[in-house]
Structure formats: C-alpha cells, structure tokens
C-alpha cells in the first residue's frame, strides 16, 4: 500500500512534468527541448516570490501560470512561427524545432545563471507529514499530486468538453482538415504552445515545494517529460497521465522491491520497450 501510494504520488509529479510538453509537441508540433528550463525557471520565480515577498506558492501559481502563458505565446510567435512557415513537412519542423529549442535551452539557462547563480536552492513549504491510510507522506507532495490531478482534469474538460479544446484536438489530429472547419491553425498552435508552457511553469512551481533545484537541472526534467510523452502517445493527455503513473509506480516498485540503483535504468528500459512494441504510444492507434 505504501509502495502504491508513493508510486502514485511520484506519478502525479511526473504527470505535471509531462502535460505541458505533450501539448506543445502534440498540437503545436514543437519538440521543446527547453521544456525543463521553463520548469526550473518557474521554480526560481516561485522561490523568489515566496522567500522574497512571502507569496504562497499556491497563490504564486496565479501569477506564474498566466505569465508563462504570455511569454510562451511570444516565443511561439517570434521564434517558432518562422520555422513552422518554412518547414515543408513535419520532419523538417521537428529537426528545426529541436535545434532552435536547444538554443533556447542555453539561453534560458544562461539567463537564470545570471540571475540566480549555479547553487542549489530550496525552501520549506508544507513539509508536514500527511497521513493517508496510516502511512505518512509529505503534504507538499500530496498537494502537488492533487494539483496535478486538478490540472489534468481541467485540461481534460477543456480539451474534451469545450469548443476551443475540441479545436485544439482537431489540430493535433489533422491540421489540414482543421483548416476546413474554419480553425485558424496557426493561432490554435500558438495557443497550445502557450498553454503547454503555462502548465510546465505550474509544474515547476509545485515541484519547487519539495525538490532541491539549480540552474543546470532542466535537462533531467526534459528527459523525463520526453519519455512520458512518447510513452503516452504524442498529444494524448490521457496517455501522458497513464504513462506518468506507470512510470511512477514502476520506479517505486523497483526501488522498494529490487534496488533503488536500478530505477533510472528501469525507466529507460520501460521506455525502450514501449518504443519498440507500441511506437504510437499506449493509447495510440497504428497508422492504417
């Protein structure tokens, strides 16, 4: 039971990390390697707001989410749109966006380095035990997991039960056909990219309540997110959530029953298996 709950909490964390990228990559078709840096930047901003001005990280979400949304919209409009326009097919866009966001990764990292230096940061927030069925867990982790659930649910409702959200999915499924139903594909892609960035930033805010972070750590998060997104099937939030939970559970199981030294290896092994046997993701359909 302890293993299960710990795994679920971890899975919730991973869900947070991956949701933003799955939107950015699945809908806007931008493979954002700077995803982790966005997350870490949000960690720093949260830290700054909390320790500097006493703004509760949960309230901070209200500032950081919209802020990240605007910034990511601008990034898409200024930096990604030219690539989208010149790409003659999806493959070209993929390569271009990998290269461009790799540049962004450095840029963000450099800016954070200028602002915050390279040391480790953390702060204490809700680091209280919270008891679930007799076992105690960090309240901050529980809060983050609940927030992840709320965000995932809100995203689900948005994507599956609103016109705007359905349009976003339509672009993910078939951008050409989407144009035929009066969807402005460019705008929708920009929106999805910005929304993805905002969610990633919220993830950063929540993770900063229990992770120790520094400027150089973004890559770790990007890797995790990539693995989850690919496992879940690009652009499929249900898949991403499931993949994140599976990953969290596997890691915890391996750590508890086998050897904590193997968790990362198990991670990649699982990922590689999924790629080999279901390259279209857990829920994905084979292209006919």
């Amino acid at each position, binding site marked *: 039971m302890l293993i299960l709950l710990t795994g679920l909490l971890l899975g919730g964390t991973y869900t947070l990390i991956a949701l933003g990228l799955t939107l950015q990559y699945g809908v806007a078709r931008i493979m954002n390697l700077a995803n982790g840096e966005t997350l870490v930047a949000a960690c720093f901003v949260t830290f700054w707001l909390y320790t500097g001005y006493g703004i509760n990280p949960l309230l901070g979400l209200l500032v950081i989410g919209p802020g990240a949304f605007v910034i990511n919209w601008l990034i898409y409009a200024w930096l990604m749109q030219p690539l989208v326009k010149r790409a003659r097919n999806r493959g070209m866009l993929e390569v271009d966006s990998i290269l461009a966001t790799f540049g962004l990764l450095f840029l963000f990292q450099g800016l954070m380095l200028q602002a915050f*230096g390279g040391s480790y940061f953390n702060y204490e927030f809700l680091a209280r035990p919270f008891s679930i069925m007799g076992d105690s867990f960090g309240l901050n982790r529980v809060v983050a997991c609940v927030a992840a659930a709320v965000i995932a649910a809100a995203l689900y409702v948005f994507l599956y039960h609103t016109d705007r959200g359905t349009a976003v999915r339509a672009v993910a499924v078939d951008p050409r056909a989407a144009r035929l139903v009066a969807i402005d594909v460019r705008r929708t892609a920009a929106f999805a990219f910005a929304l993805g960035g905002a969610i990633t930033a919220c993830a950063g805010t929540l993770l900063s309540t229990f992770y120790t972070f520094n400027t150089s750590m973004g890559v770790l998060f990007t890797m995790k997110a990539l693995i989850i997104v690919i496992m879940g099937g690009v652009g499929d939030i249900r898949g991403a959530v499931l993949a994140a939970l599976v990953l969290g559970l596997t890691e915890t199981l391996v750590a508890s029953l086998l050897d904590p030294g193997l968790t990362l290896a198990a991670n990649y092994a699982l990922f590689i298996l999924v790629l080999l046997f279901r390259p279209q993701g857990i829920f994905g359909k084979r292209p006919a």
Partner: protein
Amino acid sequence: MLRRSFNVLMLSAALAVGTIGAAMAQDPVRIGVSASKTGPLAGGASGVLWPNIKLWAEKVNKAGGLKVGDQMRPIEIVEYDDKSSPEEAVKNIQRLATQDQVDLIIPPYSTGLNLATAPLIAKYGYPQIVSTGNANDLDQFVKRWPNTFWLLGPAQGIADGIVGTLKDLRDAGKIGNRVAVVNVSDAFGLEMIKTGKPALKQAGFDIVYESSYPLGNQDVAPVIASAKAANPDAFVAYSYPPDSFALTEQAQLQKFNVKAFFVSVGGNLDAYGKRLGAAANGVLIMGGVNASDPVFQAYRKEHLEVTGQEADWWASPVAYASLEILQQAVEHVGSLDKEALNKEIQSGTFKTVIGDVHFDNNINNNNWTVGQWSDGVVHGVRATGNLQGAQQPVIKPVWPSN
C-alpha cells in the same frame, strides 16, 4: 532572513557583473581559474569554490595586494567555465598556461576534473592545491604529480569518520548495533561506501539495510521506507545535496527516528540548517568546522558580506584555506617561481581559517570528518590527525512534530 540573503545575492550578482574588467593597478598577479559555471558540477562549484575566490581576491586587493617579495601587487582573476566537461577543463588550463600565461592556477572543482587537468598543470609546474577532491589513491597521484596537494586528505578518513563516531556512541551505550547505510551511486558515493562498509563491519556493526540510488534522484521515499522497516539504530547516507535534503525531509515525514542520522555532502550547507530549523539538531554531517574558533567566525561573516552567500560548514573554509595557502606560499617564497612555491607548500606550515595546515607528502592529514548540527551551527565532532576543538557527539532527538 532568507529574503535578506536572497536580495543580497541578487545585488552582489549585479555588482560582480559590473566589476569585471574594472581596471586594476599596474602589473597585477594574474591568477587563472577554470571551474564549472554550468553543467552538473555547477551547483557545487557555485556554492563552494567561486564565492571563496571572489572573497579572497577582494580581501587581498583591499589589503593592498599580494606581497611578492617587497612589492604589493594586486591580483587579477582570469576565470573560465569548464562546463563540467574534462575536455573543456583541459583546454582551459592550456589557455591559462599558454595564452594568458597566468602566474598561478586555482584548480577546478571535483575529483574528476582535478585528475583530468593534473597532467597538464604538472607539465606547466603550477602548484595544484585541491580543495574539492579526494580519493583513496592519493599517494599514487602525488608520485605522478608532485605539484598536487590534497587538502581533504584520503577518502578513507572521511568515509570512516562516521564509523568512528558511531562506535564511540555505541561503546558509550548510547546507540545499538544496527546500521542502515545508503549511498548515491556515483564516483563519490561508491568510493565512500567501499571504505565505509568494511569499516562498519570491522567495528562490529550490523548492516541491516543497504542500498544505493541514482545520482539526481530526489524521490527517495522508498529508500527511507525500507530503511525504516529494517529498524536501525543509526542511518548513514553517503549523499549529495539534492538527495541529502530529500532524505532528511522523507525521514522527518515518515517519522524515521534513529539515534544517529548522518548525511554527507549537502548536510554541511547553511541552507540545510535554515531549512530544517530545530529539526536539524543532532543531525550528523560529513566534514565539519571548529565553530567556536573566532577566525572561522570572522570568515563566515565576511563570506556573507562579500558574496551575499553563506559559507557552508565544511567545504567553504577548506576552499578558502587553499587560497590562503597559495597566498602565504607566495609571501614566504617572495616570488612567483613555481618550483619554489611547490617546495614551500610541501614543507611549510600555513595559518588558515581551518587552522594550521601543513602537508605530509603533499597530503593534509588533519581534517574534520564528522560534524553535528546544534541550534543552527555545526560543530566538528570528529577529525583525523590532531585537529583541536572537537565536541562530544550527542544522540539525535526524535524529529520535532509539526
């Protein structure tokens, strides 16, 4: 408090940018540094090495400069980022030695980069005073590169320190025989466990739980849960900063109460004590300082004032000491002749923030190995060699409930 230190940090970062390239007085002593500003090692280097270089340079220049013979010459730091990569580090050393032709070199952060650059630094003859790296085979290194000096001493001493402390506690009847031991699986963690584990066994401890976890892993709830299930009297973690924090937080959350709780790198950070507050009381850490030494206290104060960052309770003073040794060696020799400097460092005795240092066969054998938190301060409780000022270790109280 946090807010203040944070703002100071921001301010000093801005100042640092502004003062780069500020004109120095005539004929400065050029001192090259190549260490990590980016990449995985940047976290450690930015906490321990870079601030001390800044502090030292500022202090020396404020005092009129470095005394070389009868001249007072200002010092100028030439710094490069090695991006945590050996290739870059090697290239940077080459650049410092042959392009910038610096007078002295401050070696990089971490054991790996120090070893990667050692052949080159040796080739150019600069003294290499390593303050942030150690290993068990120091004798071998010294034979290869007689210009290397190892301030932290052999890994053996550091790894065994906690064993000695546990043994003392047990022999005094304060704790039992059961020990849980975990390590981060990277070079450091393995080196430590390799010597620590046999030492524990030899001291007659039962290792009731043993495990390793990957570098960078902060999700250590399963580790603590399993350790707790083994019901140990003492918990020993050869850990790094992110996981030191995570292990402690999980132990607290899961009410994993042991009588001795030990974490390694990270436990020495000032932020560790700040973060935990009263809960830190009684936590044992790797390394330590003589907190009651006024020299050290003054150093801590200056460190905060100049860098905006708190010095930690182990590595910072050691790093600073390495610079003091370099400085005093120059002053003693009266020139920048590398050969003479190496000789002086090999034989001389230096007054530093960590006390008097002298090298035996290029290795400093007087080191703090275990410290213990007590009301926001770390006191050294165990040392190798003949360091003075160790306090008696105490049993860790149960985690305060919050």
